[in-house]
């Protein structure tokens, strides 16, 4: 029992972290809160499904294509919509939120629900870890998550592009004055966030069915994790993912699985009361106190 909490909590946490990272990367760099995250997530899953089932493409091809399409969609969203709204925080939020809702509700209207919409797992079978049987798909998710994190860290801290990203994140105008194009960087950050979103969809969705409500769920979870961890801090997102991930699994195992949905909410409100900027939020303390 305890071991399975350990293992499943870990997997759950990695899933949460992957979902949240896409959102937090974009926000951390360009200050765009991409509320169409949930929409992109489901869209990524549906594209993969369509390529795989309807067009008969090989799995990795259709998955790869849909990840690229979603990335392009993110960039396009910046180029067409957000670029006109830069700096108007509220308008940006409303624009991305409405796009997300358009995507999700459109899919709902087109009849995306039921068992038919289901991506197969990459590989069947399960492995024993600490005496707990774990499906291979979950193991792939954990490995991919770890790999993604390492790549991300390398990219942000050891490449020129990453340096430009950090520059824009810290001071857009200064970055502009040393020859970085903030618009380009912001666009890339959106593309990157969307790619991560689609990637996590490809990896995670085979665990269940593709449904519109799942899109809203993902958005909620990503946001809750980001808020608890601090919206722009990668470390915070990881820590928060593990906190929520484990508490969720603990609740469902020891109390009642019906209560798992209460966990993120309770955690979030509790954290906000004591630390409004999240656990690792770069506390703009003046802002925080008033």
């Amino acid at each position, binding site marked *: 029992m305890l071991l399975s909490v350990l293992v499943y909590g870990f997997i759950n946490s990695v899933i949460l972290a992957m979902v949240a990272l896409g959102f937090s990367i974009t926000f951390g760099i360009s200050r765009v*809160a991409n*509320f169409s995250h949930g929409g992109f997530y489901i869209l990524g899953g549906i594209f993969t499904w369509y390529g795989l089932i309807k067009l008969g493409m090989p799995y990795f091809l259709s998955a790869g294509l849909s990840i690229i399409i979603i990335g392009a969609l993110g960039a396009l969203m910046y180029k067409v*919509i957000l670029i*006109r*709204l830069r700096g*108007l*925080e*509220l*308008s940006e*939020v*409303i*624009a991305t*939120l*409405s*796009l997300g*809702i*358009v995507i999700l*509700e*459109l899919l*709902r*209207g087109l009849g995306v629900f039921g068992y038919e919409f289901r991506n197969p797992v990459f590989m069947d079978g399960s492995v024993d870890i600490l005496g707990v049987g774990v499906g291979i798909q979950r193991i792939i998710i954990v490995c991919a998550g770890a790999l993604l994190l390492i790549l991300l860290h390398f990219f942000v801290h050891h490449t020129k592009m990453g340096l430009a990203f950090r520059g824009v994140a810290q001071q857009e105008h200064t970055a502009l004055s040393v020859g970085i194009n903030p618009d380009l960087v912001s666009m890339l950050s959106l593309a990157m966030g969307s790619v991560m979103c689609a990637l996590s969809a490809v990896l995670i969705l085979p665990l269940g069915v593709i449904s519109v409500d799942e899109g*809203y*769920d993902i*958005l*909620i979870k990503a*946001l*809750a994790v*980001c*808020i608890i961890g601090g*919206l722009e801090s990668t470390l915070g997102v990881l820590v928060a993912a593990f906190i929520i991930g484990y508490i969720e699994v603990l609740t469902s195992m020891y109390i009642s*699985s*019906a*209560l*798992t*949905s*209460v966990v*993120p*909410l309770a955690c*979030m*409100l*509790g954290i*906000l*009361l004591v630390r*409004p900027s999240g656990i690792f939020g770069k506390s703009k303390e*003046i*802002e*925080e*106190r*008033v």
Partner: protein
Amino acid sequence: MSTERRKERIDRPIKAVTDDIFCLSSIREIAYLVIPRMLPVVGLLLLAFLVPPYWRKVMVITFVMGMMALSWDFMASCGLTSLGQALFFALGAYSAGAANHYLGLPIYLSIPLGTLIGAVISTACIYPTLGLRGIYFSVVTLIIPLMLMRVVETTGIFGGTEGITGLSPFPGIIVTIALSMIALWITFFGLRRLIDSDYGHIFVALKDNDRAVEASGLSIRWFKVQAIFIGSGICCFCGAFMTHYYMSIGMSAFAVDLSIFPIAASVVGGMGTLVGPLLGAIILGPLSEALRAFGSFRVVIYAALLGTFIVMLPEGLFPYLARKYQQIERWVEAPGGISED
């Protein structure tokens, strides 16, 4: 030397006079001022009672949505841009529903009680987020109702997915429509009066600069609580009203479309004007009814409209129309071309 044309905008002479000096000298000037103000009041009054019975229902929904939009706009002009008006609506609806269903209170008690309890619970729900500003606040308000929906769904409280049915109805459609219209006008004029009063300036100040409010010796938390209480109270009334109107309450009270509608109405009509949201609701309410056949595409259309307006006409319809009404626009020759600045 090239001649180009540029658009010139001049205030109409009547506006120039009436804006500064409240001195009207002719029927024409009085009409200029009064007609646009009377039009909605009289128009709605006539419409409400003259339209065929089916459209009366639409009017009721429109009025209620107008209140939701007004409440959103009020909160937004206090710097509290909520993306989850549905939370307040649902809390009001569930409070009234519970009061009616479990306690057996009659409708004229359950609605006020539901409003009050709903507003108290809403304020308590939002209280932890009051340390947040701008977008951070929006993010949290967006997810709270969606999470609560999950909570209701999985724990099965208040009827879970089934909801509560068989609540007491209103005595008749005329009463309903009259009540909703009166409530709408009270909300509208009340909020306008509040915003224009000295006390209301504190709420405006909250958005402009909350640190300066704090340096003025006023606790921003306390004033934000007041703003939320007022804003959520309005939505709770809407929720309580609608539960009794539909005679049932379900999880759909938390759904995103209820959060999106007030924002869409405000953005389409013009944020921060109070008249704008009203105009927006009057446009979107019947439109959404006309689109009922499209099912969930209805929300798509709202959201698409919302996105389009925020990008293409961010000021909204009302300021746009007001400008057209009050200004003369014409093309004039600009000799020597238009200067660079």
